[in-house]
């Protein structure tokens, strides 16, 4: 037996086990690398958020999610690597016993199996890196084909090296332990038909004797194979936490953020503005989903101000339920410091700095606004109040403790407005400030609004009313247009939905790895019970009974892992990752559906070796 050819030949001879180990490790490496590369590509990396797309508020949900999923993917990778090597070695203990019994020294045996481990880990890491890069490449092209901007920059070489090295080390470190343990097993034990590596001799636990026979055998075998059972439960639980965080978290966060977005922009809202202002407004809203250059635009140009006749005409249309008049400008804004008492020392401390920047400033009538923002604090009190509500992005960029600070608009000498709320608003990526219309008008000495938003009574014939409004507006000034905001709202929602569904797609890799692990566990169970299954069949058990016993074990393991994984996943999602989650009955049904599908898919997948085994003739089972 050549020292170099034995491990290679051995791996090639055991094709199914070798490919199972390589595929599951490959998927772990690929999913981790893909996750890291993908985050860079779509620009929802931790720092890129505020600069390019979305708003700071949305990024505070996306970022922890991605970090958490990234960490979990690494943990899952480590656990799966460890489990697969454990399964590999558990199936080899008899061979090792025979090698030892015939005089092969421990060092040589350790060398053989470490070489096998090295080959498997190297092959998996290499294939995983290739698959991860290809998946990233395919997703980038898909994103661009869908009209969403994804960076075509070359992949980060050092990221690939990092993932490769980490998983290679994981595989070797976690794999070396069971190899070392197995080589220490006494040869007499190892070749004994009743000894199995990782098997507890007898468990004190006995399933209720009145229970069904197949269930009884399944349960007792699980408890007897304690070491492997605990490992697979840990492995699957971690995967189910990942799946739950991604699926439940993804669904809840998707609905929550969609809700914020829909309420901020407004559903079925009709915009009446000058056509240039319409283009500008849509541009400001579309910055949420694509980074765009903003050409210079003079918001204060008189031609954009709403003619009185149009306002009168709208006021006299009974089918219009709400008229929301706004004055939108671009302004230089300044952070205003405040003072507070340090509760522990009693000393006066300064809050904030003297930062400044540009933002869109919108004057609104607080009592008549169509939008409902997700707010920290409260909305503007009355039409003349010296108050402001600022967008989440400028709150993060320009203020230390916004609700304890003030804001100045345009210049140093203007009056200080108290910040009473921070809102999540997609317009201009959250770089926006809302103030009472009259307050803004008095600051800039512009008496008319330049934007009017209306909502039509749902009981009215929307098409007819819109035609009538269009005609009236056009008759006053043909440069003014009537534009429905639903289209731009849907594009924003579509972008959010795409990001969440992509995040939800990520654990599929891990789920596939977990299924392969479960197959490994089932194969281990079959190998360990092979003789007994043969006896059961010889004494009258039908092939189906063997499948039922194995399926029972697989299902119990899955259910235990599922319960742990889902419970922890839901707690993490709701308590840590999403502030004020929106959970409806539909959300619960949707999440339950996805998670049930994951459970069933994994379960059905795991039955393959049992079904294959049950088809074998009894003689082959009993006398392999």
């Amino acid at each position, binding site marked *: 037996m050549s020292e170099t050819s034995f491990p290679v030949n051995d791996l090639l001879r055991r094709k199914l086990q070798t490919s199972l180990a390589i595929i599951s490790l490959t998927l772990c490496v690929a999913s981790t690398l893909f996750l890291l590369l993908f985050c860079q590509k779509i620009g929802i990396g931790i720092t890129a958020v505020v600069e390019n797309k979305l708003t700071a508020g949305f990024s505070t949900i996306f970022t922890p999610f991605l970090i958490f999923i990234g960490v979990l993917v690494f943990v899952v990778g480590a656990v799966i690597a460890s489990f697969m090597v454990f399964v590999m070695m558990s199936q080899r203990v008899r061979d090792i016993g025979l090698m030892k019994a015939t005089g092969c020294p421990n060092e040589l045996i350790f060398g053989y199996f470490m070489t096998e481990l090295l080959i498997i880990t190297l092959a998996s890491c290499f294939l995983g890196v290739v698959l991860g890069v290809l998946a990233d490449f395919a997703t980038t092209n898909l994103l661009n084909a869908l009209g969403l901007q994804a960076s075509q920059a070359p992949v980060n070489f050092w990221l690939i090296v990092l993932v490769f090295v980490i998983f290679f080390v994981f595989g070797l470190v976690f794999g070396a332990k069971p190899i070392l343990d197995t080589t220490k097993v006494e040869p007499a034990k190892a070749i004994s038909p009743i000894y199995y590596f990782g098997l507890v001799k007898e468990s004190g636990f006995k399933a209720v004797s009145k229970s069904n026979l197949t269930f009884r055998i399944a349960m007792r075998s699980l408890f007897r194979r304690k070491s492997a059972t605990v490992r697979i439960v840990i492995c699957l639980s971690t995967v189910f936490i990942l799946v739950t965080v991604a699926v439940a978290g993804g669904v809840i966060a998707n609905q929550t953020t969609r809700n914020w977005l829909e309420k901020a922009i407004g559903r079925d809202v009709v915009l009446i503005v000058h056509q240039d202002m319409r283009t500008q407004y849509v541009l400001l809203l579309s910055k949420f989903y694509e980074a765009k250059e903003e050409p210079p635009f003079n918001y204060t140009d008189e031609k954009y101000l709403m003619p009185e006749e149009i306002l009168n005409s709208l006021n006299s249309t009974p089918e219009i339920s709400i008229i929301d008049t706004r004055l939108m400008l671009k302004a230089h804004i300044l952070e205003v410091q405040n003072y507070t008492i340090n509760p522990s020392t009693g000393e006066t401390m300064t809050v904030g700095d003297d930062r400044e920047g540009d933002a869109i400033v919108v004057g609104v009538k607080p009592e008549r606004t169509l939008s409902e923002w997700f707010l920290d604090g409260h909305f503007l009190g009355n039409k003349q109040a010296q108050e402001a509500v600022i967008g989440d992005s400028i709150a993060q960029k320009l203020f230390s403790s916004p609700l304890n600070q003030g804001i100045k608009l345009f210049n140093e000498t203007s009056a200080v407005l108290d910040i009473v709320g921070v809102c999540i608003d997609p317009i201009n990526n959250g770089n926006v400030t809302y103030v009472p219309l009259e307050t803004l008008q008095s600051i800039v000495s512009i008496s008319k609004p330049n934007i009017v938003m209306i909502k039509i009574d749902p009981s009215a014939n929307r098409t007819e009313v819109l035609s009538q409004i269009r005609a009236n507006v056009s008759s006053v000034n043909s440069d003014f247009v009537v534009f429905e905001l639903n289209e731009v709202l849907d594009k924003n929602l579509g972008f959010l939905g795409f990001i969440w569904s992509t995040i939800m797609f990520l654990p599929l890799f891990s789920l596939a790895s977990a299924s392969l692990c479960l197959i490994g566990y089932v194969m281990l169970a079959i190998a360990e019970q092979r003789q007994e299954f043969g006896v059961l069949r010889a004494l009258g058990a039908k092939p*189906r009974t063997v499948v039922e016993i194995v399926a029972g074990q697989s299902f119990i393991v899955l259910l235990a892992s599922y319960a742990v994984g889902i419970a922890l996943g839901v707690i993490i999602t709701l308590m840590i990752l999403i502030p004020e989650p929106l959970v409806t009955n539909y959300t619960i049904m949707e999440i339950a559906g996805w998670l049930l599908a994951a459970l069933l898919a994994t379960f059905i997948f795991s039955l393959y070796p049992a079904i294959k085994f049950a088809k074998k003739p009894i003689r082959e089972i009993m006398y392999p």
Partner: protein
Amino acid sequence: MPAEKKVVQASNLCKIYEIGDVKVEAFRDVSFSVENGEFTAIGGPSGCGKTTLLNIVGGIDRPTSGKITVFGEDLNVKDEDFLASFRCHKIGFVFQSYNLVSTLTVAENVAFPMEWARKSEDHIEKRLEELLTTVGLQHRAEHLPSQLSGGEQQRVAFARALANDPPLLLVDEPTGNLDIKTSQKIVQILEKLKSEGKTIIIATHDEQILRLADQKLRFEDGKLVNQIE
């Protein structure tokens, strides 16, 4: 001799194993019959095909060629589900290496063929007590196989084989792994079964068991020779 008296009828059985490209012949042209209530012993050197022949008679293996009929059923043409049910009701197996289910207690090991035969709980309990008394292991009912000696495990295997009161018992080297004293207990069980009129086919080298046989068959050069009619 009326056909229904024949429990087993084998004609021209041949078994060849294919291991890669190599073909290994276990036996050829094996023909024999076993009548109802007959005690048949099969002898021969190790690896001559005794266990294979028992497996074919029990429907857990199929011959490469030839015909095997057990209780009038041509086993070659039956599917796995039929054979499972057939074994459960008609055949009791005692394996050389006991082959008890390690996760089940003695009582459960004996009871499970009855559970598959869908016997009532009362019947199972009554039969269990009867069988454990027969093999002298009532006190071991709640023990696991790993807590028993080889002889005790073999006696449990007998009790299990008799659970559904099968008309045919196939026994493979029951004393092969046991010392003389323990073997004696197994011989006593076989004597009792013979006196009850059970049809038994047994693969053995044991002289004490061979003495019980009504029919002695022996494998010589891959062929089965009838020693005493």
